């Protein structure tokens, strides 16, 4: 009885500890939002949106390392609190179910990114080289993975094919880069009112109302997705 009371208390406390942890990160990252501590629920929201955006976007989107780390520590914290609980306890089962759902989102999100990294390796590496540190699409782990992957593919091709070919053929590195079709059509939902969105290449504009949905080539709305003014569905 008293055990479970303690536990309930401990589980209740996690909100506070998360807020504290999240406030730290916020200070480093977003000066204009430092007054408001981010809640675990908000982090989950951001991750879910990042997940669906990533699934629907033809290109690799900006990494979410900060949010992922926050959520992972939240999950670890939760598991720590749960470890003394009876496995058949109602609370254990429910918390466990929720954690499984969250883990699924994170795993699916990262897997989706890996698929893109493997499909467009060199293209993504090249693009990231031109970006500022804050705008890089690849997380540092992903960047390392991409580099290794590119190197392995290269070594493999050299071993089985290109070293037997005339020099001329070896110089096709540029041509071999695989890039996504940024004009792929996507389904979009506006989060806020956005005016003057160009929807055709001849500069035709429309205003998006909050909650409105559209099918449109990705490239025309990529910046709205990045700024979270709209999300992919």
């Amino acid at each position: 009885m008293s055990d479970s009371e303690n536990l309930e208390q401990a589980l209740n406390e996690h909100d506070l500890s998360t807020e504290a942890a999240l406030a730290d990160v916020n200070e480093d990252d977003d000066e204009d939002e430092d007054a408001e501590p981010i809640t675990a629920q908000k982090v989950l929201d951001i991750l879910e949106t990042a997940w669906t955006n990533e699934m629907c976007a033809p290109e690799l989107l900006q990494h979410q390392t900060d949010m992922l780390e926050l959520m992972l520590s939240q999950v670890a914290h939760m598991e720590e609190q749960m470890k003394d609980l009876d496995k058949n306890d109602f609370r254990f089962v429910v918390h466990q179910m929720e954690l499984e759902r969250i883990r699924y989102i994170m795993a699916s999100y990262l897997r989706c990114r890996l698929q893109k990294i493997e499909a467009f390796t060199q293209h993504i590496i090249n693009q990231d080289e031109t970006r500022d540190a804050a705008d890089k699409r690849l997380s540092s782990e992903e960047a390392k993975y991409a580099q290794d992957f590119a190197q392995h593919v290269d070594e493999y091709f050299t071993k089985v094919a290109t070293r037997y070919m005339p020099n001329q053929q070896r110089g096709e590195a540029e041509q071999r880069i695989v890039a996504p079709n940024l004009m792929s059509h996507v389904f979009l939902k506006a989060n806020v009112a956005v005016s003057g969105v160009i929807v055709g290449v001849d500069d035709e504009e429309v205003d998006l109302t909050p909650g409105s949905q559209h099918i449109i080539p990705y490239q025309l709305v990529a910046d709205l997705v990045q700024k979270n003014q709209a999300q992919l569905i």
Partner: protein
Amino acid sequence: MDPSIIEFIGEKSMISIIPNFSNEPLHLIYGSVGPFRAGFPVYVPLWLATHLRKQQKCRIVPPEWMDLETLEEIKEEEKRSKFFTKMPSEHYMVVAQLVMSTAPDDVPRCEELRTIIKDIFDIRESKLRTSIDAFIKGEGTYAKLDNLTLLEIHSVRPILPYSLDHIARYQRIATASQRDTSMLGLSTTGGGGVSGSGSGSATVTGSMSNSFFTQ
């Protein structure tokens, strides 16, 4: 996004249950639920509701719209309207499917509801197909799809966006070839084709915004 992912997303919808047990509130990362008091309704996420129902720890209270008369009205409205009407829940199919399959006994006139919800889905889907046809004939690159739910979008995904991608690709080629042949001969190497995924210099599309989907 296949149906299992759409179901997963829809499982976040809140639904009322009547538990047969009592418990303090649970502080989930997603948000707090409870307190649970035996015999009193409480809102929980659908994934929790179906779990508890399978454990026979609750009854599910069907959402208000899961009612023959309401749905009959929605169906008539959907038939009358040129546009997609707003559904009472943006995950109406998922909610209906999960509630009716886990707790058919909690839903009065379950079979009739099942049929009418399927009818509404079918009406909307065929409306979507008709609109798509008009949209593609209108040379648009962009269309509005207000009130369409994820599972309805799924019925034309990925075939519709993929088709539009190819149509747009060939349209760019056709337009570019008409405009300027001299530049084309030089750039047909590589697979990406003439305009490929470039920044859009050669991308000219007849983009009448399309009114068929617009409210």
